[in-house]
């Protein structure tokens, strides 16, 4: 692995101005010397800045030809940095703090690890690769870009904390696993793919889903009226994940769409939904 360490020199003066840092990606670093990487342009509001004006860079002399061999390490106060790892296909990015919007959107491979929280649209429209968020995630995690009716179509997202609204919206393939809780519209418009939530979910999970599966191991406070209870099963095998012990309540829906989506709720916490 060829490691590049990017350390923010000093905190951003006006934190309200977002920074578009889509050049921070192994695919763009590849085939460049460290001097060329320092000169890469990022946008702060309407101003262009070279990477070295904000970060101090250290690492190998040359990044080599293969993005798969590149590891980028980011430290600093980065919650206004957008589009990091956008469209990346190989390699690894590790972020030591919280990060801004569109982290790893449209990525097709590689791995991103965030040791803090992420903002909205993390992993939006991704087609492959892996994102591991050790803090909390914002809205639209693994969702779709604005207006797109075809969302995440592959890859894996793991969140150790909680997520906000519309997680996995329009998802077509892949796995999202959330260790904490989710708020509203979990898996809205879900078409295919799997969402696993270990914590509680507030309400409206699976709204307008047309396929795929949502697994909730905590309490779903309120279910949509357009889901029907079908049966109870003891355990649930999930492709690419393993088997989860139940028993589970199986709901089918959304009846407002085609009735091909499935929601598996852990029985001991969700008995209130079948009374």
């Amino acid at each position: 692995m060829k490691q590049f360490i990017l350390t923010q020199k000093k905190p951003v003066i006006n934190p309200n101005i977002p920074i578009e840092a889509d050049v921070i990606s192994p695919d763009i670093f590849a085939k460049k010397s460290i001097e060329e990487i320092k000169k890469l342009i990022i946008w702060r509001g309407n101003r262009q800045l070279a990477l070295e004006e904000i970060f101090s860079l250290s690492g190998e002399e040359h990044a080599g030809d293969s993005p798969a061999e590149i590891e980028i390490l980011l430290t600093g106060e980065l919650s206004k940095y957008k589009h990091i790892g956008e469209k990346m296909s190989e390699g690894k990015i590790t972020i030591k703090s919280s990060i801004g919007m569109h982290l790893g959107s449209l990525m097709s491979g590689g791995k991103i690890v965030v040791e803090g929280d992420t903002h909205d649209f993390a992993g939006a429209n991704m087609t492959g690769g892996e994102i591991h968020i050790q803090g909390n995630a914002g809205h639209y995690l693994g969702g779709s870009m604005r207006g797109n009716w075809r969302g995440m179509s592959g890859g894996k997202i793991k969140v150790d904390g909680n997520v906000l609204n519309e997680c996995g919206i329009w998802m077509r393939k892949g796995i999202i696993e959330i260790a904490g809780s989710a708020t509203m519209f979990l898996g809205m418009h879900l078409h295919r793919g799997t969402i696993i939530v270990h914590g509680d979910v507030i309400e409206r999970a699976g709204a307008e889903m047309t396929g795929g599966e949502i697994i909730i191991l905590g309490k779903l406070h309120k279910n949509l009226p357009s889901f029907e209870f079908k049966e109870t099963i003891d355990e649930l095998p999930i492709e690419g994940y393993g088997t989860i012990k139940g028993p589970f309540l199986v709901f089918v829906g959304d009846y407002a769409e085609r009735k091909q989506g499935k929601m598996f709720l852990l029985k001991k916490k969700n008995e209130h939904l079948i009374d």
Partner: protein
Amino acid sequence: MPGGVDIHAHIAGPKVNSGRLLRPEDHIIDPLKKTAVARSGTGRSVPSTYYTGYAYARLGYTFAMEPAMPPLEARHTHEELMDIPIIDKGAYTLLGSNWFVLERISEMNKDEMAAFVAWLLKASGGYSIKLVNPGGEETWAWGKNVHTLDDLVGSFKATPRKIIKTLAAVNERLSLPQTIHLHTNNLGIPGNHDVTLETMNAVKGIKPGKGRKTNMHLTHIQFSSYGGKGWNDFCSEAPEIAHYINKNDHVSCDVGQIIFTNTTTMTADGAWEWTLRGITEHLAWSPRSGSKWMNTQVELESSSGVVPYIFRRKNPVNAVQWAIGLEFLLMIKDLNKVNISTDHPNGGPFTFYPTIFSWLMSKEARDRMLSRTDKAAKEKTSLAELTREFSLAEIAQVSRVSASKILGLKNKGHLGIGADADIAIYDFKAPLNELNKNYKAVEKGFAKAAYTIKDGELVLKDGEIVSSPFGRTFRVEANIPEDWTLQIRDAIEDRFRKHYTVSLANYAVQKEYFPNEELITTEPR
């Protein structure tokens, strides 16, 4: 070559703007960065205004017409046209379902009708009369549609046939530079070719105005040439319609070629957009509950709709549609009667014109695409048998010369005396006599002009914008005698007081909307 002329491209106006709002996911694919001379923008199927101008210049096009402007929305349309750089432009005024016309059509006073049309063209800053699904837009306000030429329109005594004939006659009476620009009834529906033939027959007797033989322009004719009773036996009737056009001199057309891509359909034919929205529920690419959509009624004048659509090679209907457009271009003998359009963005963005050129110039390119499409394109159309290959001169004919003749533009579409210095220079990087074997070079060469010159000024060099002047807005005024208007002045005022949401004084577009204009005045007969 002279700069390209696009006769029919939805580039400005309220429905284009709705399309922009509806498709953020389409913009993100093709952003345009700011340079020292060019502004930023976003592109693809519904590009922003500046992007539109630059993209046309990149193709070597210097003229484009917005084909559907409801007079009530003329202000918006011209505001956007003003912001499209480089190209010359204009807009067609929608008249097919105007209440004033519908109401007076049964007891028509010819002077009165001509005066009204002339007034409306002037008030809206339009270039010619556009009819979209004549009568259908008004019927759609009541949730219905017209299906034959003799259906009654709403509560009026008008029928589509009467509307078309009346406005065609008025058009020739006013000696407008272009004929009526017609989007046929039943557009997009299987088996609509008989209505199209009937429409062409209906205006046969009307004497064309000075300097031209045609009295009707059928736009995006590909969408009006379908056979079969339903989507299962959907087939091409292009040969029959092309035969009519070959035999008769009174009809011209543009093709409305489709491209296999993700695009946005938008038209003033609200009823058809609603039908299309229903169709998308059953297509694999669309969400199960159908694609997103918009539909609008424009008071007493028109309607409109927007629906995203993806043309797929493996969809039998799309494959046949693709073949029909090319059939027209290859079958019509007199190329003065036909020109290329994609009905941007309905059949595909105009940026795909170079691909169409390569299909026309090379049978090999067509065959290659034909082998990749659904077999219906081979079985239900005659495209596979057509061996014609266009020369560069013929490409120039269908991309600029015939369009400017149909539009009645004396200074466009040629490089002779009196022509504007709108010039496109292409570099194909291949021998010119072997372009039919080098279709990729054709596509590349046309997609990025080496030089584009607008009014004598170099605007584009090697595909990069080097300067960004503003073109002119073309509009038409007919010098009608004073006494024709006297009879209708009160009626128009009354109509506005009773039924419009704007007052008459705020309706007409004033001269500030035409900072650079080219006014064509005509003398009515």
